[in-house]
């Protein structure tokens, strides 16, 4: 099976004297569903940031979607990011844009035609049950609704990889369930690789998943 992520001897740090992830080795198969857990401050989010190139490896190698992220050029990084969908705990929606335009963002960046873009956005708005809110702005929505918009945005361009940082951290049960269903759907129907950083793995998952745990700067698979 193809590997979508290959980390070899990977170290991550925010500054030279503080290593968060220390010489870890792991890989993720294409089309798999992976949970990454660990205590607060263990480096879960740091690892996720490195996967979309916001934090460069200080040592070792990290290949995501065939792109080596150590010393990656901005053009290559942009190319990789066009094929990744990211869901953040704080949503990261553009406040001055409508819900519709926020969901459109990856489609615009990927140069989709306007008709395709509109159809895709309409369909996603239905999936996240926000069709009636399309013209509203993020701050007019609840936290759960904003996260559903962020989820729709992450799925809009059919990415090869979805990275989600505590996507249900602050959400009510209804929104949480909707998010998990969408992530499962992307994984099972579209064969999208999904990596979710979370404190708790939901009990009622309907997909086979791998579980990595981070502790003291190292990562190991929980079986």
């Amino acid at each position: 099976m193809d590997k979508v992520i290959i980390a070899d001897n990977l170290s991550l740090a925010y500054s030279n004297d503080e290593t968060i992830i220390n010489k870890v080795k792991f890989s993720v198969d294409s089309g798999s569903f992976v949970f990454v857990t660990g205590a607060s401050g263990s480096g879960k989010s740091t690892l996720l940031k490195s996967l979309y190139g916001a934090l460069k490896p200080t040592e070792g190698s990290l290949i995501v979607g065939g792109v080596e992220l150590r010393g990656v050029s901005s053009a290559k990084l942009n190319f990789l990011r066009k094929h990744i969908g990211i869901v953040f705990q704080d949503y990261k929606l553009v406040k001055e844009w409508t819900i519709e335009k926020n969901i459109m963002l990856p489609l615009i960046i990927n140069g989709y035609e306007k008709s395709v873009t509109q159809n895709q956005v309409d369909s996603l708005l239905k999936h996240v049950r926000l069709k009636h809110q399309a013209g509203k702005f993020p701050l007019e929505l609840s936290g759960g609704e904003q996260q559903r918009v962020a989820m729709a945005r992450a799925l809009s361009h059919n990415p090869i990889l979805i990275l989600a940082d505590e996507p249900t951290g602050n959400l009510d049960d209804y929104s949480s369930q909707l998010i998990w269903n969408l992530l499962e759907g992307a994984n099972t129907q579209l064969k999208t690789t999904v990596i979710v950083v979370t404190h708790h793995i939901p009990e009622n998952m309907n997909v086979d998943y791998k579980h990595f745990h981070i502790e003291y700067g190292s990562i190991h698979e929980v079986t």
Partner: protein
Amino acid sequence: MKSLKNHLSLVIALVGILFSLQVFMIVERAIDAYKENLAQNYSLVIVSKKILASEDILKVDKNFSTLNELSPDTVIKKLNSDFSQKNIELLKLTLPKFYKLKLYSYPSPQEVEEITENLLKNSSIMKVETFSKTHDTTYKLLLLFKTVITVFALSVLLVTILLIFKELRIWQFKHNERMSIMALFGAPVWLRSAVLFRLSIVDALIATAFSFILFSYIASNSWVAEQFNSIGIDVNVFHMLEDSLVMLGVSITVSILLATFIVLGHKEEV
């Protein structure tokens, strides 16, 4: 409303720059027109032992326009009653020759000194009267006026630049989040900053249009023309095409520089 306020801040700052620039240009034009006017009324008087050839004198300095001999008749007329015609004719022959030398442009005191020095190299020339006292006062007044206006224009420019830098920080804060989010989804720099450049250009166009209307009004106002006419000059306050293009160029350059600073100062969140 908030967005309009943000637009207004840059538009006002740009109008400030365009206003000070145009005022400076008007003053330059007024001073040039006034200097031309002065040059028309200003001339040197040369006293010579011999008759001077006009072409010899005119080639001494490029600024020399015409050389005309002054008739001694006015002076001699006063003596008419006391001298016989024969003596008057004799006197005419012995009197030095007086010439009026006109210039193309109004000279600075240094230029006047140089002109005098060069003319006196001619052994026939006994004296050059430059009317330096009156000339110096007028010239210094002109310079003072120009300096005051330049200081005023520079002060407006300085305050406006400070305003623009304040605006830059607001824009940086406002656009940083959107640009960071776009970067996370792989948007290239040109796409991330497109909105910013579009806004800057729109603001530059609004500022130019506003300044165009303002100065068109000022140019068409008879009061302004009357003020210039009262000091004997006719100044075109606003050259529609030429000045509008300068305004457009300046406002677009400033606003694009502002947008470029924001793009260069953008740091991706980690």
